[in-house]
């Protein structure tokens, strides 16, 4: 591991200036559960890590009429222990509560999950399904990017030199909506998704018809994927096995996985179909309350 300096700025602008100064020789440190593993494995040679956990803005977690705002440094445990999030954003909980084990969840956050940009990031599909937006600060000011556009490839994001994710904003779900995320792993915990599916459904007031839906996939492409067609196909459709099965089959088509030690192309596509069906049913159940 290349020896690096530890910097703990207290403001976003300080953090931005350190990051800008070092270019790709410095990285933000949130929970460190990806960063420190990669630094130790010599994936990166860093001169500095910039701990974001002393920046109050990045540690705030707030929920109000407009939606949920998760600071980029907030660990998963704070998210899934939050009563209001449990009630209003069960899909977010599904993702946040399965990243690593308890020790990892004390540190790892959704911000780090997003910035790490692994195709398998378990936090990301639900964020996409909820239409979440990433807020970014950098040397040239602030900007917002839809979560589905945030990752541009494995371990690559839209972040430019000196830019920092500050928070993830999730709009308040309308009435009669529901969301869910699951993944397939060979073990029951502490594992990387072979395939993951997050869905968000908006039903009519009787819970009999889909008004809209968003389906997002993990581990079946170079980045987490928004399966737009699959979600759109449900708009206006009755809530029944047939609609669900056809959306699941479209989700399978949207998957473009590779074969590796964690699974084969066939297995992963098959899993996307199975899990999409299961998550749609779960989200429907939640939407109906």
């Amino acid at each position, binding site marked *: *591991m*290349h020896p690096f300096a530890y910097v703990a700025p207290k403001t976003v602008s300080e953090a931005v200036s350190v990051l800008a100064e070092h270019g790709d020789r410095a990285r933000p440190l949130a929970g460190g559960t990806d960063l420190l593993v990669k630094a130790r494995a010599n994936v990166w040679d860093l001169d500095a890590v910039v701990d974001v956990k002393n920046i109050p803005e990045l540690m705030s977690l707030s929920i109000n009429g407009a939606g949920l705002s998760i600071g980029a440094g907030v660990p998963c445990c704070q998210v899934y222990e939050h009563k209001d999030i449990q009630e209003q954003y069960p899909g977010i909980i599904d993702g946040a509560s399965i990243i690593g084990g308890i020790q990892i969840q004390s540190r790892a956050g959704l911000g780090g999950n997003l910035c790490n940009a692994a195709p398998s990031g378990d936090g990301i599909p639900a964020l996409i399904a909820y239409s979440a937006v990433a807020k970014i600060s950098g040397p040239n000011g602030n900007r917002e990017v839809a979560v589905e556009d945030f990752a541009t490839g494995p371990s690559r994001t839209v972040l430019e030199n000196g830019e920092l994710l500050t928070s993830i904003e999730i709009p308040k779900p309308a009435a009669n909506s529901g969301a869910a995320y699951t993944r*397939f792993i*060979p*073990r*029951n915990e502490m594992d*990387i998704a072979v395939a993951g599916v997050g869905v968000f459904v908006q039903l009519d007031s009787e819970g009999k018809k889909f008004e809209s839906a968003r389906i997002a996939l993990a581990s079946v492409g170079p980045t987490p994927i928004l399966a737009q067609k699959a979600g759109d196909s449900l708009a206006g459709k009755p809530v029944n096995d047939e609609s669900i099965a056809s959306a699941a089959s479209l989700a399978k088509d949207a998957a473009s996985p590779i074969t590796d030690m*964690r699974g084969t192309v066939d297995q992963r596509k098959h899993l996307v179909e*199975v899990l999409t069906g299961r998550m749609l049913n779960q989200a429907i159940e939640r939407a109906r309350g």
Partner: protein
Amino acid sequence: MVATFEPKTDYKVVGTRPIRHDGYDKVTGRAIYGGDMKLPGLIWGVMVRSPHAHATIKSIDTSAAEAMKGVFSVITGADMPKAPSKLVDLGEGNVNFKWASNKLMADTKVLYRGHPVAAVAAVDRYVAEEAARKVVVEYDVLPAITNVVDALKPDAPILLDDLVGDDLGEDVTNTNMAAHVRHEFGDVEGAMASATHTIEREYNMQMVHQGYIEPHNATALWDEEDRIKVWTSTQGSFPARTQIAGILQVDVSRVKVTPLEIGGGFGGKIPVYFEPIAALLSKKSQRPVKMVMERTAVFETTGPTPGARMIVKLGADSNGKLTAATADIWFEAGANPGAFIGPAAQCVYAPYEIPNTRIDGWDVLVNKPKVAPYRAPGSPQVAFAMESAVDELCEQAGWDSLQFRIDNASKEGTRRGDGVLFSKIGMQEVLEATKQTDHWNSPIGDAPEGKVRGRGIANGYWFNIGLKSSANLSVNSDGTVQLTEGSTDIGGSRTSMAMHVAEVLGLDAHDVRPVVGDTESVGFTDVTGGSRTTYATGYACWQAANNLVDVLKQRVAILWDVKAEDVDFKDGVFISNAESAKTISFKELAGKLEDLGGPANSTGAVDLESAGDGFGTHIADVEIDLATGKTDVIRYTAIQDVGTAIHPSYVEGQLQGGSVQGIGWALNEEYFMHEDGRMANSSFLDYRMPTSLDLPPIDTVLVEVPNPLHPYGVRGVGETPICPPIPAIANAINDATGKRLYSTPMNAGSIVESLK
């Protein structure tokens, strides 16, 4: 003449569950494991490893590393003493110094990914790691061999130019086949031809790792007297000494090995990896050097048990009796010979009485780490093949597979596949006990929608070794006893040793204070492995305790002014044969020794045959998600003949731990290799050993058929329990889905595939 013993039942200490003596240090974090070693002036060593699985080394440039601030020394293959080709038995497996040396540090060629090519010693670990990255090595990459089939192709690249293979006694050169052995009894072909039912199947298994949580480590000091002191986590300080001395080409007495606490081994910490390297770095640096292995290197360069290709054929008559069997077994040795085909041959048919048998085994080199013993090395592989075939045969013929196992069970006098005849064994008792378990007699229950359940059983066997052990005793004036023994303690064995002594002396287990000695404070003791420790070292302790009684009788004789022959000893009390009312307790006597000849010490030393054959049967219930192939083990029972359980908690623990390693092997664990010979999943994240959440409680049934070869009837127990789980789960999966899997791991992907 081998001594035999009558079974006893009236034990005072044997069979109880005292708190282990080393437990307090281990639950408070005080125990010193290998990685915790500290010495004045200690510096750190780090290996430079090959990124290629097969390549010739063109050049090594260490200058940039040597120039770095904080670096003390750098060594390469050129610094390794030239060890001669000499085979030495290590108890569980053996070692050839030439190859062992080459495994530790490559010479002109790297043979597996991670093969060390240089080593660096520096002021701390971080500096050493940085310096190691500055060593520049140029390679000519060669094609890598990753399986036995490719290795034996006529045009295969050859790993070791100077290997002379042994093909049924004939020398062969220019080969990747180190050995081909055969055991044949009876008229196999004739019996197979006349069998009513036959089955022939091929089975394949990937390499798996022992997965101990503590990485390999060593601290060494090569001092100015030219003596080499080593502190390490090892399964045997004496066998470690043998290897270190052999690789460094010095006399054994110049090496002192102090065993520190060891964080798991399962066979994998019998071979040494770092000790000689740390010693060479120390010599060059004139400082003690410590090395701790990274987890990736633990996977890539240590441990694995052989991957296997096996073809098993069985024949049975119309009455459900096995009449013939053949097994062809190809095992991956890794980059040097030694793939445990011997043990595989001993184990494959052991649970069954089969009159006509043949076994052919091949020891094959591949560009993977050299295999190391892993809990019953070779036996889980052949158990998977044999026990799967037995179930499939029963299925075909419509026989109950438990009854079939009972009807064909081996017993005293049965001939094992390699020709050895069994003495008193407990296979039948274990199977009868299996039939009586609550598990076997309880319905499996209904699976939730979309899932199916199945139950499987399988047998397993390990022969359990004996070998050499030593123990010393001395009496303290307060009536307690100091025990020094030579077996490094991986799982509570100190306490079992103390219990052997306490039983003889009529003391409480905690009145005996056990310590594990270093190579200069106790006599030669073989590895903690082969399921021999409680048996053989326990035997030595028993012997030392009896010798101590003899010493003390002399002292009582002085006290009472009688002849030593007239003093008897029972339940901790010395009794006069002449005057039956005259007694003195062990404790009381201890306080008087000062005036009765001073210190009272004794010693025990043994060199034993087998620790008694160990048979087990396991029952596994699985639940499978038909859509995803996810398999959960929902109930599990391990039944085993354990001889006599000295400390039943730790015997149960052996059964539970072995079962779970087998479950991991069955379902998810494997060396997933890239074509170029790199392991793709060399981390705990992707190697996927079971976590607590992946398992049900593991129930155990201890069947006690005392081993007549041990004073208390102890039998080896540690290894047998890893053998049945893999086939038990294969049989359970088949029961659940109707599909049989012939390769491990039997993971979700292969289950879904089988259901297509």
